[in-house]
């Protein structure tokens, strides 16, 4: 398993230093230093309001940080936003899909936005990958939550991103659908880096290489998955959230 080694020999997909974000007086993130090795999978845990979504949004360059910097594959995110965005795939809480358009039309739109070459072929591929080929011409509004999530995943994979960001992908999916999703992500994988946030240790631990626990905008704990089991992680989570909660 690859891992977030601190040594410089491993190339880094994402590196943040001193990342901070405040909304008025509320500090959502404070001084996040994170190194994610290329090709590894990082799981970010934390209670609601710990800053998980904020972190993902900043990495996706949707939100701009108040302080600190983000390097993506060695490039400063602030200065190279457009270039870097084409390397990122994003699945958020909401699907980012238009209810009045069909799955195909939605994907075609985003394929244009990402400048995907040979659009028709690639859309066919990702639809096949997520198993939505038969319903490709149905409107999004007729899809169940799980199906929408699959199309959202297809949307994120369209342009073959080298970094995939997932914000609580397990919400609204049952165990079966979730493992299908991870299966899809791994099947389409070609040395891709994945960063995802999660509430569920049971579901996340088997698929990640590294674990980070966020608490009140800070990194409270950082460990490689190979040094952890489910119980020790849960215990650590309790410690972190209670220690800061005082």
């Amino acid at each position, binding site marked *: 398993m690859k891992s977030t080694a601190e040594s410089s020999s491993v190339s880094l997909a994402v590196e943040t230093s001193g990342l901070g974000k405040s909304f008025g007086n509320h500090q959502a993130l404070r001084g996040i230093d994170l190194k994610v090795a290329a090709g590894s999978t990082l799981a970010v845990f934390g209670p609601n309001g710990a800053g998980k979504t904020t972190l993902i*949004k900043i990495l996706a360059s949707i*939100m701009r940080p108040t302080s600190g910097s983000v390097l993506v594959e060695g490039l400063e995110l602030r200065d190279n936003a*457009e270039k870097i965005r084409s390397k990122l795939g*994003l699945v*958020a*809480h*909401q699907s980012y*899909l238009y209810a009045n358009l069909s799955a195909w039309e939605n994907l075609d739109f985003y394929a244009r*936005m990402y*400048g995907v070459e040979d659009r028709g072929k690639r859309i066919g591929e990702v639809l096949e990958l997520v198993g939505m080929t038969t319903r490709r011409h149905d409107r999004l509004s007729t899809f169940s939550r799980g199906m929408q999530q699959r199309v959202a995943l297809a949307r994120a994979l369209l342009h073959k991103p080298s970094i995939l960001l997932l914000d609580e992908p397990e919400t609204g999916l049952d165990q079966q659908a979730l493992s299908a999703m991870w299966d899809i992500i791994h099947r389409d994988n070609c040395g891709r880096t994945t960063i995802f946030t999660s509430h569920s240790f049971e579901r996340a631990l088997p698929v990640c290489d590294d674990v980070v626990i966020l608490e009140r905008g800070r990194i409270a704990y950082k460990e490689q998955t190979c040094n952890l089991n489910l119980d020790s992680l849960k215990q650590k989570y309790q410690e972190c959230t209670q220690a800061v909660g005082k």
Partner: protein
Amino acid sequence: MKFWPRVMAIAWKDILSELRTKEIISSVLVFAVLVLVIFDFAFDLAPNLMLEIAPGVLWVAFAFAGVLALNRAFIPEKEENCLEGLMACPVGREAIYVGKALGSLFFMLLVEAVILPIFALLFNIAVLQPELIVVTLLATVGFVAVGTIFSALAVNTRARELVLPILFLPIVSPIIISAVKASALALGGTGWGGMTSWLSIILAFDVIFMVVPFLVFPYVIEE
């Protein structure tokens, strides 16, 4: 060169989605016709006076129809938070502005194209004059240029239906004034000569409000 294909993709996506539901166009059309009819009742005028108030009526109908259409422009982007999806795409935020504005421009022109004949019928005025069409086109560009940025702004406030007209109408007042005056001259058959000063105000407005919102739009949608 990457800019325009993406702008067109955004505009086309809006048009496609609208053609599916026809939500905006149908409701705006009904509303605009209602405005015309109500004005027709309110001013029970002799035919010779009709020509004087008709341009005003026409532009009140267009302005209110525009507010209604623009109010809806960013709602699909909020529903599944698609605006965030657009912001994650490798395009400048300006492209989102231009794309949305082009989409709205298309709807507005479509609505106006239907309203004008109805207006001609109700007010017994010949509207098929190149002067009037040019005025309408230019004024609508200015409308949409300002309206798009305020629509993006209003959709993120607590009372979006209220905020847009309050913001939008005072700002576009020079366009409305100039369009009414120019339309009156066009309908009066004065020809281009008398209209130049009005047309130049509309043009100046168009240019300024294509540049300024283009520059500040990224600040409206960022998080």
